[in-house]
């Protein structure tokens, strides 16, 4: 083998090795970043699923007699909460619904329910069970989410007071009141159950969370005010979240996602 042949073969080997190494390097970068990108997409999917499901059924009200219809007949079931989050109210349906037979003071922990077509006479609380959340709603006034300690005959024993006065005829229905808010310290989207006060993380790596309300389903007319009188007209809600990768060294850009919902219970009959 001559010197020229050795040099040519070495040059070819070096060129080939260089090409292969650069390909391996690119492959390794891909292998490092793609799981992170996939994780970002999965978190966006979870956010869409959780918040979408919550907003989809927001405002569903009592459908037992006396029928009351959607919650936005009396208050905004999607409303901003202190700290920049949103609180979403909905009744879950089923047989746990009725009306108060006797007015209850804000400190009362016992609700007496009137007879209803669902339950036998004198058994107005028949659909409720311990541990459920009861939404106590007085049109244009009190709204409270309280945990049921026990349900016997026509009595609902609450785990705590409703906190506002309820007239006779106010609605008591099993439901859910959740508040979603951003914890800037942990960069997590949190969910608080308003009946128990328990807080749990929903999503990691969230750096921004904002809400816009619209008074039309098309999203053309944003609602400027934040009072109940303004927000009761909300027909469309737009939530914007900014998700950030868990490893900042990978230089993957943040993912901004928008949950644009037209809650079906807020659109009228």
């Amino acid at each position: 083998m001559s010197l020229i042949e050795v040099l040519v073969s070495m040059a070819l080997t070096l060129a080939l090795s260089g090409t292969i190494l650069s390909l391996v390097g690119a492959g390794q970068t891909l292998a490092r970043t793609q799981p992170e990108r996939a994780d970002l997409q999965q978190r966006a999917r979870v956010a869409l699923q959780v918040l979408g499901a919550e907003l989809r059924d927001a405002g569903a009200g009592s459908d037992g007699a006396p029928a009351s219809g959607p919650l936005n007949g009396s208050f905004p079931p999607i409303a901003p909460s202190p700290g920049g989050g949103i609180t979403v109210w909905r009744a879950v349906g089923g047989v746990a619904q009725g009306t108060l037979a006797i007015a209850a003071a804000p400190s009362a922990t016992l609700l007496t329910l009137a007879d209803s077509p669902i339950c036998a006479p004198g058994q107005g609380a028949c659909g409720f069970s311990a541990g459920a959340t009861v939404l106590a709603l007085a049109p244009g006034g009190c709204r409270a989410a309280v945990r049921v300690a026990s349900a016997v005959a026509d009595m609902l024993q609450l785990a705590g007071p409703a906190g506002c006065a309820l007239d006779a005829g106010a609605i008591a229905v099993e439901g859910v009141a959740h508040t979603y808010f951003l914890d800037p310290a942990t960069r997590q989207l949190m969910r608080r159950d308003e009946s128990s006060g328990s807080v749990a993380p929903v999503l990691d790596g969230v750096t921004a969370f904002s809400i816009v309300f619209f008074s039309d389903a098309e999203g053309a007319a944003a609602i400027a005010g934040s009072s109940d009188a303004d927000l009761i007209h909300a027909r469309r809600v737009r939530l914007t979240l900014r998700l950030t990768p868990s490893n900042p060294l990978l230089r993957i850009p943040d993912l901004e996602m928008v949950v644009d919902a037209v809650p079906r219970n807020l659109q009228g009959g």
Partner: protein
Amino acid sequence: MAILSSLVAAVLLTCLGMSLVLLGSAATALSAHDAQGTAAAYEAQAAAMLAASEVRVRPDWSGVWSAGVPADVSAAPGRLADATFFPRAPWDGSSIDLHALTTARQAESDGALPPGVAGPVWRLFEYGPISRLVPSDPSGHARYVVVWVADGRGGVVLLHATAFGAAGVRASVEASVGLRPGAAAPSRLAIRSVP
């Protein structure tokens, strides 16, 4: 030497490529299943809305929740009523037993009630392939929808719509129709997804 390094690099690249393909295919499968579930949920909602709009305009609801022939079918069913109670599944041609589905619906409803509470009696109201409602793209909507109706008592009609699809995909929506306080005509009271 060159051949050896080429082989090592080829093996490495193959491993990396395969792991990326696996990651991609898992994400694709998840995404496809998610899309199927979402489509089924919207189709169940469409079926519930269709049934609600039909019920709203009927002057008398007693026929809606009364027993027809056979007894698990409404005496006055909706317009989306198939010709058979054992239709072919739009996704693979297998048989769907609507009577068995109705029995399962009733058992599920009864099972969710507290002891001593008499629950609603569910009857078939609308049942057919959703493609009948979207004839322009039947292959894109290979699902079968069923809407059951029940007397919610106190002048309320309860509706339960389920869309069935391939690979066990199913999504359900509940709705109710009745008179809101102060309203002159019946309207939809509530609509909600069933977990």
